[in-house]
């Protein structure tokens, strides 16, 4: 029903099908007025695009309409009736023409349902006559008023009002044409009867133009519908109607060939849009764990979700590290000796891993087995020594990464120092070294890049001003999708308001600040004590373990052997809890508290880690002493061996010794790698066990004991646990730090970490959804993501330090690893340069590495950094300045708008008052006279507008006319009807543009 679709123009007051010449200018004028208003109001939103502007202008109007609705509706209906009669009598040619045109174009697109209308017409007519009297009266009143009031502003207002009324009326007419119970012109109906159906071929080009415009307007309306201040029902109705309209007429536009093409084009755009939408959906579906994270976000707010997003990001990084080490180090080394069968098994294992992805430990052993094909025992470093062979397959040994695991591709010691392997002459030691460097370099790059990207996003808003407004309008987390969380969030907002009010009071009272300060200092002191205590405990344990190591580990229990790891894990688990309790003393905002907490746990973990590293250094020194002895012994052993053979028979073939029997150095690198792997494993285990006991078991107990307990376990004492964002984030970060530290000595670490992250993704997602409750103070995690990154960067730096230190200062073991036999590990580069590159290259390199060249280069870099930094700072300052300027402009505009609005309101009220008075006075006047006056009044109005009395300078003039559509064709259309009065309207349009220049300069 095309008529129905036309009704929508009632909602969309700005955008309408207008075919009448009179309305044309008025509408332009009005739109301009609204634009002006809107611009005044939302000046700061300069950058917003057209749609947005239009919408806001409409909304302004919508609000106005609402405020005036009562009186206006009444008036409108009266005037409509009046007009209906008036048109039948055919008083004014112009009007009639207009109506006819309208009828042609609107009605022609309509199915006829006016039968009813006709029936009702007679009845309505009587009423209409009666009402028209009132309408005339009103008009007289307005006219009178105009005479009385002299202020420019007021008149402008008045005019606007008049325009609005007229518009409304017209609109209403359009509407009524489709509604059976309201009256309709006889002329119109006849016209309609003549061409009842939609036949676009019959439309004139102008009408087609109009139709096209209307379609465009509808499209715009659909786009801007979301921002309108309407009830949802109205929105839905409007949307449906507009869509119907667009669908109906879009294809009808254009003629013949062009029409088909147009239809085709429209269809293709639709299909393309659909495809794009589907593609977007597909892309979202492709992001791993996206749905899981979204679900968690909806239940627990963005702070918890930020952890999972961080976890996912970490997983991505580790994926790349893993593929680097796996592809360039492990696979070549394994393929070197594996036969086909084992390669096959390896790939099967990989395949299963990617299919099942969860059964890690089992697969891990399987993996090891696959890697440890028989050929592993080809040289001593790839063979389990005779002494360890007996227990090399025991689970306990494997669990400690001894036995077969130690002499496998998982650790540094397994790798051969053969310079080039295979057909491709793969430079194994070089590759090993470069991969080690590359992983760290890549990590640096990624972390810094991410930080820079995040820094761009954040740092826009200033936190301190408009504290309560921010709270009022932005504290709701719209991602919450569950009623309990919503309840919680509601509670947290109220509490935060309370807190904010309290803070405000306190900051004014200013007497409690000392107490707070004291408490904060006290809390920090307690935390420091805690840190010192835990540091001492770890130190103590490490010393003890060294003693055990000297005694020989076999004499001690499992507990004693694993004391260091246990204590570290336990402290890492429990100390944060204590910090959390202590931090309640400080009474910070949760976001600030989270950062403090992160900082403290960071210090704790760092202390633990460095204690561990220092202990490791001691162990390395011990091993190196041992190595010296072993080296001496080996030379002795070899000497005796060769002496023995030499003395017997000099031509006899050299005795083949089984590689397992060859005496071995202690290989400190493998030891370091083992330590790291053990630490990771125990850490992972502790995390999972804590998860299972602390969260799951607790949740089960609380849930099922609640029926038979004397108080409410769920709401009260033990309750369910909350998700500990800070602890988990730091666990992740330190875990990564250990990976970076140990990956050089244990190439399996990235793989292990990948598994760990994968499992913890699923496990923690499950645990969060199943046994945690949302935090009581759900807060937005806005800037903390970059805080995580900063910590990651610090950890990265701190973890590369010891790795680099060991690489640079300690010579590699003499009989294991890819660098055996070299003085330092980085000698491999020099070796490659000398033997694999042409001589000139090494020469160039040696020149380039000359300090005389390097130092200036570094200096240049420093200068560049300094320059960039200072420019960025100045940009930032400029930004701040601009922001301030914008704000000031806003405020000024707001003030002006307010004044204008106040004035308008006052005027309106006065107008109403006087109107009602005059209406009472002249109730008994003659119809025809009034009609005359009505016409005159309209003419008057038009005249006034065209002769450009400066309409209210503060409201109308400020901004240029905003051309919603091209006025050209409409003007031509008006010209057809031969009404020269409308042409000067363009003066009016151009005038404000000229006025605008000074207004801009003012700011």
């Amino acid at each position, binding site marked *: 029903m095309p008529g129905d679709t036309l009704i929508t123009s009632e909602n969309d007051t700005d955008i309408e099908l207008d075919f009448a010449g009179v309305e044309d200018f008025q509408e332009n004028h009005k739109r301009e007025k609204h634009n002006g208003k809107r611009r005044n109001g939302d000046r700061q939103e300069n950058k917003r695009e057209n749609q947005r502007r239009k919408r806001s202008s409409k909304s302004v109007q919508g609000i106005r309409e609402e405020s005036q609705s009562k009186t206006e509706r009444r008036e409108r209906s009266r005037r409509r009736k009046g007009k209906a009669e008036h048109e039948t009598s055919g008083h004014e040619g112009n009007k009639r023409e207009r109506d006819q045109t309208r009828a042609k174009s609107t009605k022609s697109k309509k199915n006829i349902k006016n039968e009813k209308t006709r029936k009702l017409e007679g009845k309505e007519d009587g009423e209409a006559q009666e009402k028209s009297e009132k309408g005339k009266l009103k008009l007289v009143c307005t006219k009178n008023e105009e005479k009385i009031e002299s202020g420019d502003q007021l008149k402008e207002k008045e005019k606007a009002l008049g325009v609005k009324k007229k518009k409304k009326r017209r609109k209403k007419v359009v509407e009524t044409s489709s509604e059976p119970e309201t009256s309709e012109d006889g002329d119109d109906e006849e016209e309609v009867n003549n061409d009842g159906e939609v036949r676009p071929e019959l439309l004139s080009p102008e009408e087609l133009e109009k139709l096209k415009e209307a379609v465009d307007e509808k499209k715009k309306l659909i786009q801007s519908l979301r921002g309108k201040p309407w009830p949802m029902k109205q929105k839905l109705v409007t949307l449906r109607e507009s869509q119907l309209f667009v669908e109906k007429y879009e294809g009808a536009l254009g003629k013949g060939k062009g029409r088909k093409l147009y239809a085709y084009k429209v269809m293709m755009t639709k299909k393309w849009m659909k495809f794009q939408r589907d593609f977007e959906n597909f892309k979202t579906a492709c992001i791993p764990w996206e749905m899981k994270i979204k679900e968690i976000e909806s239940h627990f707010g963005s702070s918890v979700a930020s952890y999972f997003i961080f976890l996912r990001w970490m997983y991505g990084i580790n994926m790349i590290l893993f593929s680097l080490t796996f592809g360039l180090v492990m696979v070549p080394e394994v393929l070197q000796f594996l036969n086909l069968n084992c390669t096959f098994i390896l790939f099967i294992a990989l395949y299963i891993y990617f299919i099942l992805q969860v059964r890690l430990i089992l697969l891990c052993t399987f993996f090891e087995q696959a890697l440890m094909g028989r050929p592993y025992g080809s040289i001593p470093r790839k063979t389990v020594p005779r002494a360890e062979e007996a227990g090399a397959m025991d689970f306990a040994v494997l669990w400690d990464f001894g036995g077969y695991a130690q002499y496998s591709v998982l650790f540094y010691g397994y790798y051969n120092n053969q310079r080039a392997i295979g057909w491709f002459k793969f430079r194994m030691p070089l590759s090993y070294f470069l991969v080690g460097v590359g992983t760290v370099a890549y990590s640096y790059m990624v972390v810094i890049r991410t930080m820079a990207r995040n820094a761009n996003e954040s740092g826009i808003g200033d936190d301190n001003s408009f504290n309560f407004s921010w709270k009022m309008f932005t504290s709701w987390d719209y991602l919450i999708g569950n009623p309990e969380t919503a309840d919680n969030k509601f509670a947290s907002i109220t509490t935060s308001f309370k807190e904010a009010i309290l803070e405000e009071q306190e900051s004014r009272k200013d007497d409690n600040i000392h107490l707070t300060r004291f408490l904060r200092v006290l809390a920090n002191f307690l935390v420091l004590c805690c840190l010192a205590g835990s540091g001492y405990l770890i130190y103590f344990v490490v010393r003890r373990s060294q003693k055990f190591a000297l005694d020989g580990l076999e004499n001690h229990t499992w507990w004693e052997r694993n004391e260091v790891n246990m204590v570290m894990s336990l*402290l890492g688990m*429990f100390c944060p809890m204590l910090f959390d309790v202590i931090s309640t003393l400080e009474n910070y905002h949760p976001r600030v508290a989270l950062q403090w907490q992160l900082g403290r746990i960071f210090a704790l973990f760092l202390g633990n880690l460095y204690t561990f590293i220092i202990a490791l250094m001691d162990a390395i020194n011990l091993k190196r002493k041992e190595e010296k002895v072993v080296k001496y012994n080996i030379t002795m052993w070899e000497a005796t061996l060769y002496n023995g053979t030499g003395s017997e028979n000099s031509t006899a073939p050299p005795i083949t010794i089984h590689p397992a029997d060859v005496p071995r150095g202690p290989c400190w690198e493998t030891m370091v790698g083992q330590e790291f792997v053990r630490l990771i494993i125990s850490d992972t285990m502790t995390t999972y066990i804590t998860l299972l006991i602390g969260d799951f078991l607790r949740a089960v107990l609380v849930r099922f004991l609640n029926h038979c307990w004397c108080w409410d376990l769920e709401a009260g004492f033990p309750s369910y646990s909350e998700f500990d964002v800070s602890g988990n984030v730091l666990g992740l970060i330190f875990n990564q730090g250990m990976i970076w530290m140990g990956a050089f000595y244990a190439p399996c670490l990235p793989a292990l970490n990948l598994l760990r992250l994968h499992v913890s993704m699923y496990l923690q997602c499950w645990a969060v959804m199943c046994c945690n409750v949302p935090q009581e103070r759900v807060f937005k995690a806005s800037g903390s993501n970059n805080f995580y990154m900063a910590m990651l960067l610090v950890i990265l730096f701190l973890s590369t330090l010891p790795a680099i230190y060991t690489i640079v200062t300690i010579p590699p073991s003499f009989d294991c690893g890819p660098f055996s036999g070299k003085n330092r590990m980085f000698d491999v580069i020099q070796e490659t340069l000398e033997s694999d590159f042409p001589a000139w290259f090494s020469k160039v390199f040696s020149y380039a590495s000359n300090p005389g060249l390097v130092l200036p280069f570094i200096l240049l870099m420093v200068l560049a950094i300094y320059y960039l930094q200072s420019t960025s700072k100045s940009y930032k300052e400029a930004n701040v300045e601009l922001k301030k300027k914008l704000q000031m402009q806003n405020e000024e505009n707001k003030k002006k708008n307010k004044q204008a609005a106040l004035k308008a309101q006052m005027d309106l009220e006065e107008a109403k008052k006087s109107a009602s008075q005059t209406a009472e006075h002249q109730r008994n006047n003659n119809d025809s006279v009034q009609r005359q006056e009505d016409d005159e009044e309209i003419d008057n109005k038009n005249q006034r507008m065209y002769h450009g009395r400066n309409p209210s300078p503060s409201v109308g003039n400020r901004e240029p006319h905003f051309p919603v559509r091209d006025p050209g064709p409409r003007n031509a259309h008006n010209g057809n009807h031969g009404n020269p009065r409308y042409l000067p309207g363009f003066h009016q349009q151009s005038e404000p543009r000229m006025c605008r220049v000074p207004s801009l300069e003012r700011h």
Partner: protein
Amino acid sequence: MTLLIKCMHLPFSFSSRMVSPAIALAFLPLLLTLIIRYRYYFVLFYRAVLVRIWKDCVTGLSREERAFQYVLTNSTPGDPDSILDAFDYWCSKVEFISNIGPKKGKILDRLLMEQSPLTVLELGAHCGYSTVRIARALPLGARLYSIEMDQGNAAIAEKIIRLAGFDDDTVELIVNPSDEVIPRLRSDYNLERLDFVFMDHWKKCYLPDLQLLEGYGLLGKGSMIVADNVLFPGAPKFLRYLRKCGLYEWKIHRATLEYSRGIRDGMAELIYQGIK
């Protein structure tokens, strides 16, 4: 298989020696955390359970009797305020009785002032503190029915109420379990509609009693029901019912447990809307 068992056996074989002291020390932060975090609960446990048992053994009187003795000696007869003050002092300084307490009592007073009900039902008088509190705030001509299950407590409550100067016309104490009394309210006491109901008896009975009240049509539109201790010790089923049923306009006044600072508690305020 045997290999696996052997492997599993090894790490978990405890030798005769103890777990090392360092590991035990690592649990210290956990212990501290638990103590600090749940200190209020420990204090409550001490005051409400340990002290009570100790005093019961020493004096041979029940807790309520001791409270009554104190109130009798330390308050002005006929003055409800002084009786309430004496109660508050005894409960916060000497021993613990879970009365409504002064803070939540203020909320109750305010609600009563706003509502100014004529027929009030109290479930669970205990030793009369809340009864006195409600009776004090009632308008002239209002009547309070107080239900107490326990004989001994009821006797003390009776004494306290009379001590405060409220006669039989204002306060009527009914000694019977609430689920027996409520069905008979209409017939035995000629009650048509309750304006105000205060619940402070067994937390498990909140929901059945509320349903009984609904079932016997004692609640009219605008009747107010106030339930104490809905968060601690807590009445989860009651709250769940409120959320679901939609018969009430309700909210929870968040406060702390009576005579204790750190334990959060709440008082539910319900206004019966009837079936819409």
